[in-house]
């Protein structure tokens, strides 16, 4: 997204609402994510016509229909690759990928990791409900081991991906997590994703109340959430708990949960640093581990070379070097001859 001139600074939420009836199940977490997106987009300072939403297939992937911007609901798993083409063709566009845990991590796993590796300035919003919603409830690559679903009546046998560890292992330059129910925070993550130059990868925990209800309930229920969620803030110590009395230390190389008090004080805690890959990795590993709180927020954010910027430079360099391409000269070639 290069500097877009804001022609209409008065856009509001309603400008981003399309005329299509929203077709998710009543109660689906997708509604909240859509609402927060529509709410925060006017603040991004983008011209509406420069925004493109690209999705694959899944419940979540219907999202583009509901945004009154350019949109393309494509095929299962391929949104990151399509978005790459969209962005490379016109780097001026603000390109958003909407995808699900099946779409992005099962069939589309390869495109996802390659997008992150290439670091195109594309923003990925991965709706993780830990289930295949659209196909009516099979387990997904983020479902917990032993998950009982239609396709695994005796429990699933594969260990889940940790979507953020995978992204970090692929050299993503911006990695974050949000929750459908934490609306203000979700908005801020969307904003951060937008401002980051390079691929932004935001996992959003999303409740599928039909096929995997309450998957994230411990993290959203009032009684439990302060103990299960670790809110990440850059340069702040990793504190959590209802009384902010628990924290994360690193013992050797191993992170541990401690209670503050006699033995430990806030000064002993690991201080979050969004530019530290090792910390990000460590934090990503907390997920699916019962004895750790689950981190929410920006795990990692660094500047890395951006694919389309370098491509543009290469084109400029080539033109400078060789002169702007002359098609007739190219057709003529180096060795030709004339028949009279």
């Amino acid at each position, binding site marked *: 997204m290069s500097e877009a001139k804001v*022609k209409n600074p008065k856009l509001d939420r309603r400008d981003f609402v*399309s005329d*299509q009836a929203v077709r998710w199940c009543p109660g689906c977490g997708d509604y909240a994510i859509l609402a927060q997106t529509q709410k925060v987009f006017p603040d991004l300072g983008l*011209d*509406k*016509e*420069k*925004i*493109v*939403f*690209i999705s694959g*297939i899944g419940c979540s992937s219907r999202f*583009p*229909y509901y*945004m*009154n*911007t*350019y*949109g*393309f*609901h*494509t*095929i299962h798993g*391929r949104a990151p*690759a*399509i*978005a*790459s*083409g*969209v*962005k*490379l*063709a*016109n780097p*001026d*566009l603000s390109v958003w990928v909407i995808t699900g845990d099946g779409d992005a991590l099962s069939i589309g796993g*390869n*495109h996802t990791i*390659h997008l992150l590796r290439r670091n195109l300035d594309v923003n990925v919003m991965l709706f993780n409900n830990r289930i295949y919603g659209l196909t009516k409830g099979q387990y997904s690559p983020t479902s917990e081991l032993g998950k009982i679903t239609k396709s695994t009546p005796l429990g699933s046998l594969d260990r889940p991906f940790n979507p953020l560890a995978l992204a970090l292992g692929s050299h993503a330059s911006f990695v974050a997590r949000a929750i459908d129910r934490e609306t203000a925070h979700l908005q801020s993550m969307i904003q951060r994703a937008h401002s980051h130059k390079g691929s932004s990868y935001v996992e959003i925990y999303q409740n599928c109340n039909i096929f995997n209800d309450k998957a994230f309930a411990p993290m959203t229920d009032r009684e439990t959430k302060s103990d299960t969620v670790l809110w990440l803030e850059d340069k702040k110590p990793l504190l959590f708990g209802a009384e902010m009395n628990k924290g994360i230390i690193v013992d050797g190389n191993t992170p541990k949960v401690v209670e503050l008090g006699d033995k430990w004080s806030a000064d002993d805690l690991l201080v979050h640093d969004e530019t530290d890959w090792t910390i990000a990795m460590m934090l990503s590993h907390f997920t699916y581990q019962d004895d750790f709180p689950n981190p929410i927020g920006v795990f990692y954010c660094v500047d890395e070379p951006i694919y389309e910027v370098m*491509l543009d430079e*290469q*084109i400029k*360099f*080539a*033109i400078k*070097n*060789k002169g*702007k*391409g002359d*098609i*007739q000269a*190219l*057709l*003529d*070639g180096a*060795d*030709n*001859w*004339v*028949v009279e």
Partner: protein
Amino acid sequence: MSIETKNLDKVVIRFAGDSGDGMQLTGTRFTETTAIVGNDLSTLPDYPAEIRAPAGSLAGVSAFQLHFSSKDIHTPGDTPDVLVAMNPAALKVHLSELIAGGIIIVNENAFSPKNLKLAGYESNPLEDGTVDSYEIYSIQMSTLVSKACEGMDISPKTVDRTKNMFALGLLYWIYNRPLEPTIQWLGKKFAKRPELVDSNVKALNAGYNYGETVEIFSARYNVDKAPLAAGKYRNINGNYATSVGLLAGSIKADIPLFYGGYPITPASDILHTLASFRHFGVKTFQAEDEIAGITSAIGSSFSGNLGVTASSGPGIALKAEAIGLAVIAELPLVIVNVQRGGPSTGLPTKTEQADLFQALYGRNGEAPVPVIAAQTPGDCFYAAFEACQAAIKYRTPVFLLTDGYLANGSEPWSIPNFDDLPSIDPNFAEQNDDLPFFPYSRDKKTLARPWAIPGTVGLEHRIGGLEKEDVTGNVSYDPENHHKMTELREQKVQNIVNDIPKTQVLGKNSGDMLILSWGGTYGSCRSATERLQNDGKKVSHVHLRWINPLPKDLGEILIRFKNIIIPELNMGQLSKLIRADYLVDAVGLNHVKGRPFKASDIVDKVKEIIG
């Protein structure tokens, strides 16, 4: 003894040697020189396997065949007149195809016991009578180049590598060709390593002088200029012509060319060539796989670029689902299939035409895609250009079929004047404040829908792979709408028929036999037709470039012939189509041998049928 110079109409030379012997390079140089001399020509490079085999083995033999003539020719030739065999394995593999009494030139030094054994020879074929019925020239090329380079400060190995230049020089002498173009080329190629320029030029001269000096050759040959139409010519191969044709299309449409693809033999050179066009603003994207190759191209088209992808059979198979998306999204896209031998990995470096049905039908649902096939290496340019035209005009993916033979084969090509090519109007949609925007409204004539690209104020809209409602483009599950949209998509493709010129019949408009061909078999079919006509047979030839849609006038033509034969390098794909569409009893001539037809295969078959 003064050496006689004979005139010949045409010569077929096959260079053969180990993969490390530089035969492709030698052949290409001979070709370029021959082009400049003004002959008509046609080439057939042939490298046997994807993996480099051990030196000296049969599997490691690489060959390059070149047909040049003072006449208008159309094929790389059925049987070589001359075989240059740089080692025993090359002789073993290629001898049987040499014309009776043909010329053999070998590097005698390579006929060591070890190499003979690797080639599976029990005794030395140069001595045991194997080659007695041929005109054999056994020359110690390795010895001679090492002598020529004596005193130079380069390794013996490097010197030995110049023996292909020796062979080339000798052939230049025999066929009366100038050395200069090759010397110039060597100068450019090794600009940074003058010692290599030097040694290669020495070897080249040594070969030439060997012919001049050693009195073993009974004749030199002259092949006059061919009577090509006036104009500027160059030699061109199919993959290069395809690449430039795509570029030309994008320039004429004034939209950037985006290429998304993944390397695969024999299509990779299109990626390589386009990657070298950065100064034209061409964006090449080497994707993680073929699916990302095509989907990134679709994304680029959605954004208003000309999206292109190319691959060969196995890679095209992977693109099937995405092609369906481009069909229903009705976005411009060019898909190039440089066909190779199948099924599966098959014969990666060999040619075949067995992916026609894949192009026509290789997707789920009714997903019609126009298909055009190039007929010669140079025609790849025009076929690619026309594919771009149709893709943009009709908002549709278009298949361009070429094949391994066209891709690597070359011919003299009359260079078009770029300004004479038609311009292409991308006709992007623009905001019209008076009217609401409907992404699936249609142009009355073409049935094309508007191409409204992101960045255009007021045309924000959403498309996708679910069936769309006519006009609005909203998702629709309505039964009648689905039927209607299916018909619209089909009709839109059929409308291209209006852009296809009248079918040319080579020969009379009726007769005993029509040879109907498509794609890279054009040359063999045309040569066969000419031979049959010269024999007084009532045979005509029709060649198809567009296969979907088929030309309007094809049906009328077909029924005027008593017999129809369709030679294809597959088991009868066009045959099936023609039989189904026109209910004519077309007969197939079907070879799947990884190489082009010989014109004689076709001649023989036709004579078998019509006597």
